[in-house]
């Protein structure tokens, strides 16, 4: 936060090394990381061209996760940051999983135990019918 913070960093709390300051000698090269990211981007763009839905899913989202990991660890320095920062971010992600698990039975599904989401079902049918003429439809 401040020069003081740095001064403080240097004495005690082991804040220095873990603070992600100074010890970049052993840090993986930013440029290599950058090139890797571009490569991954190319793959994720190429993925759909094979027209195989599952392959698309993997190249799209699997690679997004890898890219995210690289940026977070190498660029945001989570690899040399105090562990608590990573736990913080992972906890936030875990919450989203919880949210998804709790909500999807009602919102993602269009029928369930004694209820039916007519509006959504009609919408799907209507759109599918409209699209069935066009080629680019149904992908997953």
């Amino acid at each position, binding site marked *: 936060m401040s020069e003081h913070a740095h001064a403080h960093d240097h004495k005690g709390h082991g804040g220095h090394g873990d603070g992600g300051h100074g010890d970049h000698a052993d840090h993986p090269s930013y440029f290599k990381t950058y090139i890797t990211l571009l490569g991954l981007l190319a793959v994720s763009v190429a993925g759909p061209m094979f027209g195989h839905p599952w392959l698309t899913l993997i190249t799209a989202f699997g690679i997004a996760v890898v890219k995210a990991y690289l940026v977070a660890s190498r660029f945001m320095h989570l690899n040399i940051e105090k562990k608590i920062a990573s736990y913080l971010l992972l906890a936030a992600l875990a919450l989203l999983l919880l949210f998804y698990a709790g909500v999807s039975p009602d919102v993602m599904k269009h029928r369930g*135990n*004694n*209820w*039916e*989401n*007519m*509006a*959504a079902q009609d919408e799907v049918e209507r759109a599918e019918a409209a699209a069935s003429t066009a080629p680019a439809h149904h992908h997953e």
Partner: protein
Amino acid sequence: MGTLIERYLPAASTYATDIDGVIALVAIIVGFWGVLAEVVLFGLVIAFREKPGVKAQYITGEQKSEMKWIAYPHHLVLLCDVLVIVAAVRVWYNVKQDLPPADSTVRVIAQQWAWTFVDPGPDNKLDTPDDIAINDELHLEVNRTYHYKLESRDVLHSFSIPVFRLKQDAIPGRVITGWFEPTKTGTWDIQCTEMCGIGHGLMPARVVIESADGHAAWLASHRSAAVAAIAPGAAAGAK
């Protein structure tokens, strides 16, 4: 103790008494804990008022011997929770999840700010010309199992019949099915219990539970009722 609610309202559906039962069970359990806690609290405050020359004791509450005063009630509470959960889920399953076969199915349509109740009519089938659709009055026959199909035309509403202990929100675009079986003849309130706009307090309806003959008479009086009032298409609610 099952009369806790019946002191205010009769129980007029088959599962009303089950729901009263859960309420009674919870009342007994939490009543015990609540009273116990309050009594102990007051007792301690009275017993340990400041007295000249008497110093407070030094108790960390971290030794095993002290922890047990928290641990024992902790386990007891857990036990009570299990009881409550089992009772609650059993009733819930019976009321909301597991529908007994229906003798008739009525359609309940909520809108700002009125109810439309569609009775299947003599042929006992919905969406046929002899359906009887009327506003703000739900006519039922006693001791008959009904399914209801709940819909809304605009915003959220909630279909609540206190004497049945029944409540279910209506959601535009969705059809929600539930059931009830009236056990008492009479006329009671139907309330909208979900904020639905300015008229929320002004959309009362009544449930009229008649004997078999009474219901038949009512059906007869509604031969060729205004079917147009609720064309089958419109029944899909939101669309």
